[in-house]
C-alpha cells in the first residue's frame, strides 16, 4: 500500500494496524538517514537506503525477506531514474513478499512519472514500462493526504551597486565556465544574492538556506536533521529533491520566500512556483 503525506504518528499507526491485521514475522524499514528514526510501535530493523546496494545487505535481504516479512519503504523517492540500482534492489526483495508499505510525503520529485517508482514498489513491477494511467488508481491501495505547496514573496530591494556587482559576477561565471557544470551559474548567482538578502534578515524569524556561510543562529540549512520551527526560505536549493525532503521534515506547506529584484531570484521563484503547480497537477491525476 502507498501512503502519501503521512506524518510520523500516522506512519506508526498505519504500521501497527497492518501488523495487527496480518501475521507479520519480521519488519524491515528502508529509509534515507534523516528518515530512519521514525518512531514505530512494533519491532523494526532499520536499513539505510544507500546500504541496500551493498552485497552484505542485498544478499542477506534476498535470503531473509519471505512471505511473512513486511518491508516499509520510507521516503525513498530520491532519484528520478526508474532503474536506479537501489530501486532495482528494493523491488527484488519485494518480489518475495506481499507485505509492503510505501510512505512518501510528496508524490513526485519533478514530474508525475516519478510516482511510478512508488507504484513499481507496490505492484511487484507489474507496470514497470508504463507511465501513469488513471486505471492504475483502482489497482492501488493508495491514501493521499495532499500537501499543497504555496510560495509567497518577501521582496527586498537590491541597490544599483548590487546590480552592477551581480552583472560582473554573472559575466565572470559564464566566461570562466570551462568544463564545469553549467548549473553552477544559477547556483553561484543564488549564493551571491544571499549577501544582499542577509542585510534584511529578521532576527525573530527562522530561515532555511543552502549552507551556513552566514553563521546566523536563526538560519538552518537544507541538510539539517531537525526543523523545530516554522521556516521562511532565505534561498532555494537547486534540486527539488532536497526541498521535498525539507518539506517532509518540517511538515510545512506554506513558505515565505525572500527575494530580491536580481534576475536569479525571479528565476528560482518561478521555477519553484511551476514545480508547485506540477505537484498540484500530480495530486489531481492521482485523485483521478
Amino acid at each position, binding site marked *: 500500500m502507498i501512503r502519501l503525506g503521512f506524518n510520523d504518528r500516522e506512519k506508526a499507526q498505519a504500521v501497527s494496524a497492518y501488523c495487527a491485521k496480518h501475521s507479520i514475522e519480521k519488519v524491515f524499514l528502508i529509509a534515507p538517514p534523516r528518515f530512519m528514526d521514525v518512531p514505530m510501535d512494533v519491532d523494526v530493523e532499520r536499513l539505510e537506503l544507500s546500504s541496500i546496494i551493498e552485497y552484505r545487505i542485498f544478499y542477506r535481504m534476498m535470503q531473509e525477506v519471505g512471505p511473512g516479512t513486511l518491508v516499509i519503504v520510507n521516503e525513498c523517492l530520491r532519484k528520478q531514474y526508474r*532503474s536506479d540500482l537501489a530501486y532495482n534492489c528494493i523491488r527484488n526483495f519485494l518480489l518475495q513478499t506481499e507485505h509492503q508499505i510505501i510512505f512518501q510525503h510528496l508524490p513526485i520529485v519533478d514530474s508525475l512519472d516519478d510516482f511510478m517508482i512508488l507504484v513499481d514498489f507496490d505492484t511487484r513491477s507489474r507496470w514497470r514500462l508504463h507511465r501513469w494511467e488513471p486505471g492504475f488508481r483502482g489497482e492501488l491501495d493508495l491514501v493521499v493526504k495532499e500537501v499543497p505547496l504555496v510560495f509567497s514573496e518577501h521582496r527586498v530591494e537590491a541597490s544599483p551597486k548590487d546590480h552592477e556587482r551581480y552583472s560582473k559576477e*554573472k559575466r565572470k561565471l*559564464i566566461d570562466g565556465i*570551462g568544463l564545469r557544470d553549467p*548549473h553552477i*551559474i544559477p547556483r553561484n548567482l543564488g549564493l551571491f544574492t544571499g549577501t544582499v538578502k542577509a542585510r534584511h534578515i529578521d532576527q525573530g524569524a527562522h530561515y532555511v538556506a543552502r549552507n551556513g556561510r552566514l553563521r546566523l543562529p536563526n538560519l538552518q540549512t537544507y541538510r539539517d536533521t531537525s526543523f523545530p520551527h516554522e521556516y521562511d526560505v532565505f534561498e532555494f536549493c537547486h534540486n527539488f529533491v532536497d526541498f521535498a525532503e525539507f518539506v517532509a521534515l518540517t511538515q510545512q506547506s506554506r513558505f515565505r520566500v525572500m527575494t530580491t529584484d536580481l*534576475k*536569479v531570484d525571479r*528565476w528560482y521563484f518561478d521555477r519553484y512556483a511551476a514545480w508547485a503547480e506540477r505537484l498540484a497537477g500530480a495530486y489531481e491525476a492521482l485523485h483521478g
Partner: protein
Amino acid sequence: MPTKRYTGEDVVTAARRRIGFVFDHFEQVIVSVSGGKDSTALVHLALTEARARGRRVGVFFLDEEVMYQSTVEQVERIMGDAAAKRMWLQIPFHLTNATSTTEGQLRCWEPSQRKIWMRPKGPKNMKHKPWDESAERFRSGYKWLDFYGVIENFERCFENTAFLVGLRAAGESPNRWRAVTKNPVPIGGKNVYWATRKGSNVAMYPIYDWDFHDVWKYIHDHEVPYSRIYDMQFRKGYAMSEMRVSSLIHERAFKSICDLPEFEPRTYQRLLRRVKGIALAQETGKSAKLFACRKLPKNFKSWIAYRDFLLKTHPDRERLPIFKKRFARHLENEYVARQQCRQLLLNDYENNLPIDNTEDPREALVRYYDEVL
C-alpha cells in the same frame, strides 16, 4: 517504406508462422546462436517446428573463447537437442580487446596459446575452417579474419539456405528496423520484409518484432533453460542494455569483467592468464576517469587537450590513422572530444561506440542561463 501497425496477432504466433514459412521454402535451415536470451528463444521455436516436421535444423555457434562458462553451458544444452545439427565452430580469428591498448586484438583459439586457452576445444566441435582457405575473404577494410568475416565465410559454404538470426528490431533501434525491412526478399511469390539476401542464401529474422519482455515471457511460459548469468546480472541490478553474454572483452561488454570474479571466479582466473589488461579492466572498468571516460583527468584542462595527448601517445600505431581520419570529420568541441577520448581508451577503431557528432549541449545551457539570469 513499411510502417509498424498492430495486426491483432501476438508475436509468438507470428514468429511460429514465419518459422513454418521458412521450413516450407528451404530444405536447409540453420539457426545462429550466441547463448543469449534472443537466440535461445529463437532456437527453441525452430527446434520445436523441426521436431513437428520430423526434420533437423543446423545450430551454428561461433565460439569466441573468452566467454562466460554459463554461455558455453547454455550452448551445450541447445546443441544436445536431438533435432539440432551441431555446428560449433572453434577456429582462430581476431576479436577486439577493449581492455588493452597494447594488445588491441585477441586471436582467439590461437594454436600457440593452447596452454592458456580458456577451455579445451570440444571433441564434437568443428576445429578447422569448413571453407577452402584459398577462397577465404576478409571483410572490406580488414587485413585479418574477424568475427563477421568468419560468419560470412561460413555462410558461403552453403547454398539456398535460410540462416535464422535472433535479431530484434522493435522499439530499440529504428536504424536496425530499417536495415531489416528495407530490402524485402521475394520468396514463394511473397515479399518477405523480415529477411535480407546474402548471396545465394537468405538471412531471416523471425523474431524481429519482439521486444525484450516478449523474449523473457516466452522463456518463462515455455520453461526454456537459459544462461544463469542473466539471473546474476538481474540480481546485481544491471540495466537491460547491459545484460550481455557475448565476448567478455568487447567494447560494450568489458564492464562485465568488474563483476566476473563474483559471478564466475574460475572464468575470471582463466581470463587473467589469457588476455592482457584484464586486472586493470576489473578494477577500473566502471571508473569515471578511465574506461567510462566521464571525468577529465586533472592534469588536462580540456577533453580536446586530453584527446590530443592520447592521439600522440597511442601505442597502437597501426590503427592510429583510422582514428585520425575519423576524427577529422568531426566537430571540434568538448562534447565530441570526450567521446573521441573514450574511443581511443577502448581502442575502438571499428567505431562500435559511434560518436554523437553534434554541438556541445552544455553550450546551449550556458547560453540559456546567460539569457535568463
